[in-house]
C-alpha cells in the first residue's frame, strides 16, 4: 500500500492548492431577492408525490391550477407565477434537501405551501436563516403562528388544530355540557396538537375525556382501539384521524352497538374520500367543521368561485377529482398567495412578508364570513370555522361561522 500513500499526498496537496488559490465558489449572492423579475415570480414547494402520504398530492394540483389560471388572466402585476414542486415522499431529510435545492439552485422567491408538520419543522430553521419566506404551509400545527419573532419568515394558512379543537369544545359545552368523550388520535404532531387543544379547552367544564387511544399511520387497522373506546361508556366520540382511518372508524362504529355523538375532525371530513367509502348511512349525524366551500354541496352549484374552481381544475388538471377537498384546499391557499403577492409594495422578500403579515381579505372559495386576517402579533391567517352535520346525503352547515378566541 506504499503507492496509496503517494496518492493521499497528491490529494492533500491538490486540496491545499485549491484552497490557497482561493478557488472557492462565488455563489451568486445576486440581488437582495432572487426569483422575482418583471416577468416572473418563482415559487417552490415540497410535497409527497410518493410514499404513504401521496394522497395529499391533490393539494399541489389545486394550487397549480390556481396559478395557471391567474397566469392565463394576466398574472400578478404582469408577472407569471412559476411554481416548482419537488417530491419528498413525506420524509424530512428529503424535504430539507428540497428546500436547499429550491433556494440555492432553483433560486425561488419564496417557498409556498410545503406539506407536512415534520417536514416544515425540519426546514424552518434553515429557511429563516436564509431569510426566505416559507408561507402558507400545508399543515395545521399550532407551531407556525406561536412565536413570530423566532421564525418571522414562516406562517401557516388553515385554521390550526388548537383552534379547531376549541370549536368542538365550545360546541359540546353548548349542546352536551356533561359529555363523556372518547378520543381516537393519530400518534404524531397533528393528533397530539388537536387532542392537547381539546383537553385544554374543556378545562373547568363538566366535559370529561374518559378514554383515549392512539394509532400509528403505519398500523393496518384500528379495530381494537375502537372496541376499547366503545367499551369505555363514553357518549361522545372525538375522531382525530386522517382519511383512511376516519373511514375505518366510521365503519367499525356502525358495526358496533356504540352510538355516540361522533365528532370527526376536518382532515377526515370529506364526503368523497371518507364518507362515501365508509357508507353514507353509517355517516349520518356526524359533526365536523369546515372553512371552505364543499364542492359536493348543491348550495354552491351556481356560486361564482366554485364554478371558477371547477372550470380551472378541469382545464389545468384534467385527471383531478374536483370533489377531492384537497384540490379545493390547494386552490384556496394559492388564491391567498396571489392576494399576498398582489399586495406586495416592492418586489422583494421583506415586502412579501410585510404583505403576508398584514392580510385582511376574503378568499371567495372560503365560506362566507370567513376572513383571512393577520397582523404583527397574529400569526394565524384563518381562525374561523363553521360547524357542519352530515345528513346522510350531504354536509349541512349549522349556525354561523365561529371565530375562535385564541388566548396566548
Amino acid at each position, binding site marked *: 500500500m506504499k503507492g496509496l500513500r503517494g496518492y493521499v499526498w497528491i490529494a492533500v496537496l491538490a486540496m491545499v492548492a485549491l484552497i490557497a488559490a482561493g478557488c472557492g465558489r462565488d455563489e451568486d449572492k445576486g440581488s437582495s431577492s432572487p426569483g422575482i423579475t418583471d416577468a416572473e415570480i418563482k415559487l417552490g414547494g415540497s410535497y409527497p408525490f*410518493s410514499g*404513504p402520504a*401521496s*394522497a395529499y*398530492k391533490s393539494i399541489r394540483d389545486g394550487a397549480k391550477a390556481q396559478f395557471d389560471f391567474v397566469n392565463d388572466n394576466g398574472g400578478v402585476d404582469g408577472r407569471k407565477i412559476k411554481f416548482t414542486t419537488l417530491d419528498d415522499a413525506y420524509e424530512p431529510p428529503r424535504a430539507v434537501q428540497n428546500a436547499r435545492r429550491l433556494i440555492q439552485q432553483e433560486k425561488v422567491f419564496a417557498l409556498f405551501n410545503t406539506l407536512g408538520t415534520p417536514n416544515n419543522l425540519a426546514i424552518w430553521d434553515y429557511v429563516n436563516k436564509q431569510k426566505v419566506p416559507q408561507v402558507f404551509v400545508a399543515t395545521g400545527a399550532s407551531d407556525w403562528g406561536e412565536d413570530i419573532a423566532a421564525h418571522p419568515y414562516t406562517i401557516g394558512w388553515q385554521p390550526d388544530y388548537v383552534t379547531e379543537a376549541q370549536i368542538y369544545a365550545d360546541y359540546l359545552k353548548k349542546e352536551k355540557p356533561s359529555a363523556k368523550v372518547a378520543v381516537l388520535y393519530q*400518534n404524531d404532531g397533528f393528533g397530539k396538537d388537536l387532542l392537547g387543544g381539546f383537553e385544554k379547552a374543556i378545562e373547568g367544564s363538566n366535559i370529561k375525556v374518559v378514554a383515549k*387511544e*392512539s*394509532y*400509528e399511520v*403505519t*398500523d*393496518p*387497522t384500528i*379495530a*381494537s*382501539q375502537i*372496541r*376499547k373506546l366503545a*367499551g369505555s361508556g363514553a357518549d361522545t366520540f372525538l375522531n382525530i384521524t386522517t*382519511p*383512511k382511518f376516519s*373511514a*375505518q372508524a366510521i*365503519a367499525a362504529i356502525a*358495526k358496533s352497538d356504540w352510538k355516540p355523538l361522533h365528532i370527526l375532525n376536518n382532515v377526515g371530513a370529506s364526503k*368523497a*374520500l*371518507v364518507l*362515501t*367509502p*365508509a*357508507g353514507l348511512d353509517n355517516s349520518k349525524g356526524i359533526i365536523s367543521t369546515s372553512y371552505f366551500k364543499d364542492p359536493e354541496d348543491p348550495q354552491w352549484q351556481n356560486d361564482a368561485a366554485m364554478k371558477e374552481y371547477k372550470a380551472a381544475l378541469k382545464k389545468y388538471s384534467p385527471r383531478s*377529482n374536483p370533489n*377531492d377537498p384537497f384540490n379545493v384546499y390547494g386552490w384556496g391557499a394559492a388564491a391567498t398567495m396571489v392576494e399576498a403577492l398582489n399586495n406586495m409594495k416592492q418586489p422583494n422578500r421583506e415586502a412579501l412578508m410585510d404583505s403576508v403579515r398584514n392580510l385582511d381579505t376574503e378568499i371567495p372559495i372560503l365560506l362566507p364570513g370567513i376572513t383571512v386576517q393577520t397582523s404583527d402579533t397574529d400569526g394565524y391567517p384563518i381562525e374561523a370555522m363553521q360547524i357542519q352535520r352530515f345528513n346522510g346525503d350531504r354536509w349541512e352547515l349549522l349556525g354561523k361561522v365561529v371565530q375562535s378566541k385564541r388566548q396566548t
Partner: protein
Amino acid sequence: MEELIQTIVDGVAIGSLYGALALAVVLIFRSTGIVNFAQGEMAMFSTFVAWGLLQADVPLGLAVVMTLGIAFLGGMAIERILIRPVEGSDPLTMAVVTLGLFILLNSAAGWIWGFETRSFPSIFPDDSVQLAGADVAVESLGIVALLLAVVGLLYLLFQRTKIGLAVRAVSVNPESSRLSGISVGRTLMIGWGIAAMVGALAGILIAPRLFLDVNFMGGVLIYSFAAATLGGFDSPFGAVVGGWVIGVTENLASTYVDFIGSDLKILVPLTVILAVLLIRPSGLFGSHEVARA
C-alpha cells in the same frame, strides 16, 4: 370474562388477515426460497383489479374468480420476466429485485387508480353471531374457515399431486430436479402463480375491513412477515397460526397492560416472536435447519 373472550375473538379476526397474506409469503419462500417483499403490493394490485371489475358491473363472485385467475397469470409473468433473469444468484439479490417490484407496483397503482380510499364489498354476509358471550362477525368466521380450507388444499397440492411434488423438489434442489426431468422454469412459475393467487385472495379478504387504497397492504405485510416467522417460514399452517398468535397477543397486551397502550402494542408480538425463536429457532412449525459442513 366476557371481555377476555371478546378480546381473543377480535385478535383471531385481525390475526386471520395477517395470516392470509403470510400464507402467500410462505408459499413463495417454500417454492423458490426467497422472501418476497412485493407480496403485499402484488395483493394490493390484484385487489384493485377486482375493484375495477366491480366498477364495470361484474358480479362479486365472478370478479373474485376472475381476479384469482388474473393473479395466477400475473404471478407467473412476474416470475418469468422479473425473477428468471436473476435466478440462481444469491437470495439477497433476488430480495432486492422484489424490493424494486414493491416500489414499482405501489407507484404504478397510484398512477392508474389514484390515491383515494375506496370501499370494497365483503364476500361474506354482514352479520354477527353470539359465541360464548362474544360477538363474532360472520365475516371473521368465514375468513377463518376459508383460510383453513386453503391450507388444506395446499397440503393436498404439495403432498398428493405431481405438480406439488415437483415444486417441493425444485425448492430443495433445482439441479437434481432438472436432471430428473422436471421443468424447473415452469415449476417456479407455477409456484409464483399459486402464491400470487393466495395473495390476491388475502387482498380480497382484507380490503373490506381496512378499505382499499394504494398503501393498504404496507402495514399488513410487516405483520404477515412476523406471522410467517413465528409459524416457521416454510409452513402454511404455521403462517395462519402465527397470524392468530400475533393478533391475540397484541390485543390482549393493549387491553390488559396499561403501560403498553396502543402506541407500544406492536412490541408485544415482536417480543413473543423473539422468545419463541430463542426456544425454537425455526419457528413453531418450521422444518429444522440442517447445518452442513
